[in-house]
């Protein structure tokens, strides 16, 4: 079991929990107050203001600290969603409408080649193959509405 911060495993070199405190390395963290969307955490006696929300759809916390938002979730390092998102699939990066389909099932594509064009907010976004291969599945045709993170294309990697 790992904690993913911004989609990467983070594990401190040493940490322990005791008496409502968390020790990470030399730093002592204490929970001062928790309210709706806000957490006050004391770090070595100094209060940090942390904002958060929990998205039950993807079991992910969004945590904002000092002007940066981090996504945090639990998972198994080996099969994180990150690895699924890479290489042999094309996933829609945002909601939109399929504007153009440039390839068909069975077509060979090379890395960087555009397979689909998505239209969102009056802009066109090219969705490209991230490896050399053949189109195995292609879900969606011109005019279809797609949601964010929807699987659109599966590729079969060319054997070299």
């Amino acid at each position: 079991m790992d904690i993913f911060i911004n989609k990467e495993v983070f594990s401190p070199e040493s940490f322990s929990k005791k008496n409502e405190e968390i020790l990470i390395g030399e730093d002592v963290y204490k929970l001062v107050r928790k309210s709706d969307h806000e957490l006050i955490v004391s770090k070595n006696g100094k209060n940090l203001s942390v904002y958060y929300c929990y998205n039950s759809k993807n079991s992910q916390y969004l945590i904002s600290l000092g002007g940066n938002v981090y996504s945090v979730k639990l998972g198994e390092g080996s099969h994180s969603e990150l690895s699924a998102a890479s290489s042999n699939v094309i996933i829609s990066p945002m909601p939109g409408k399929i504007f153009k389909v440039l390839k068909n099932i069975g077509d060979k594509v090379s890395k960087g080649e555009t397979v689909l064009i998505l239209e969102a907010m009056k802009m066109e976004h090219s969705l490209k193959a991230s490896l050399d291969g053949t189109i195995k599945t292609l879900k969606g045709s011109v005019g279809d509405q797609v949601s964010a993170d929807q699987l659109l294309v599966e590729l079969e990697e060319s054997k070299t």
Partner: protein
Amino acid sequence: MGEKVKKILIANRAEIASRVIRTCDKLGIETVSIFTEVDSELPFVKDATYSQCLGSGEVSETYINKNLILEIAQKHKVDGIHPGYGFLSENSEFGQLLEKNGITFIGPRAKNILLMGDKLESKKFVQSLKLPTVPGYNEDNQDAEHLKKQALKIGFPLLIKASAGGGGKGMKIVEKESEFLERLSSAKSEALKFFGNDRVILEKYLINPRHIEIQVLGDGKGNAVHLFERECSIQRRYQKVIEEAPASNISQDLRMQMCEMAVSLAKGMKYRGAGTVELILAESGEFYFLEMNTRLQVEHAITEMITGVDLVQEQIFIAQNNMLNITQNEIHSIGHAIECRIYAEDPFNNFLPQAGDLEFIGKLKDPTVRLDTSYVNGNTVSTNYDPMMAKVITHDRTRDKNILKMSEALIHLPFLGVQTNRDFLIKVLAYPKFMKGEYHTHSLEAWMDELCIKTDDSLSDIFAAFNFLVKKRKKSRDSIEDAWMRSSGQWLG
């Protein structure tokens, strides 16, 4: 005032609709909001005295459907329509249609809109008033030697542009005279290839230009005042990101020259209402007319902060009385104002537009911070319309103090639930060249690589915060959290 106009329809949506409603409320004017189904939960719908659904469909069938909007206006017996920005705000036919039906269009006259809507005509008009436009040549004589003569008049560096062109094709920068003929022939052949026409225009090329704009108000009879400048050079792909007033590093003398130029133009064209004269300011201190926006601008709020003038109130007054309610010597620029635009976009992924459920906007810890937003917590941000979600506006005595105030305000406005450019904005504010006020319209692109590095120096803090969150959620049904709690050691307390 407000004795004639008692009810206003706002032909717009989101933050600007809410913004106009605020002033109407202050003046005791009733309001009508129009909205599409996807927008039905947004605050501007409930903020208004009355609201009417436009159904769903393309913008052409809804927010810019002139006849439908007129019909609703008549049904609600409104006296005036405020168009906001975008949509119908610079549509001369809309204003004419309303006036014909006895409804006041809170904006300029059709002839003002038409004149400034035409690039070539507006430039000619500005020249006729002996005001500066970017030096150039745009005539039919295309003889190479003639063009060269014109180029020498304009001076180097200069740009050769395909007159039918766009997108950089057929565009050449010429650094010095000796390169001219060779660049001209390649520009002409590219222009012919891409546009089927080898006519070119010449234009002075400005190095490190700044985008400075002047807010004006006119009464439509030849009287006009300015409300100083706004610096809008922090842009990404022609999209403004951060604006400030006053502009940094310009002399009082230059500032007044620019303001007076804008007033001359507004007077010369008998401009009515609020408008903005956009200028391009060269490193040399020379400035030129770029275009005029015949409407309220997104960034009007920073002018309101430094002058204390409510621009929407002035617009309403002018539209019904055809006179100004303010004189030039009543308008003073005090302190410094910044606006940061919050966009639903991912700066770490090519600024792709984002959508999602907005869980938590944040807290306004400092009551002087102005937040003009389209949303409240719990709203859904869709990709149907403009990705701008909010504007954060701050004002303070000095620029340095104000930058700090803005950063602090943004830290407490995380806009959780939708990926936004908030973190990116905070990085821009802290960028040394921004802090010194040393930037121009190409600067943001040049800083981009440094600005788009994700910060990871607080990972331990986040890790600790996460553990407290999971602990406090303990009744969680998610077994994964229980598993984490067990595997990471028991809490003894």
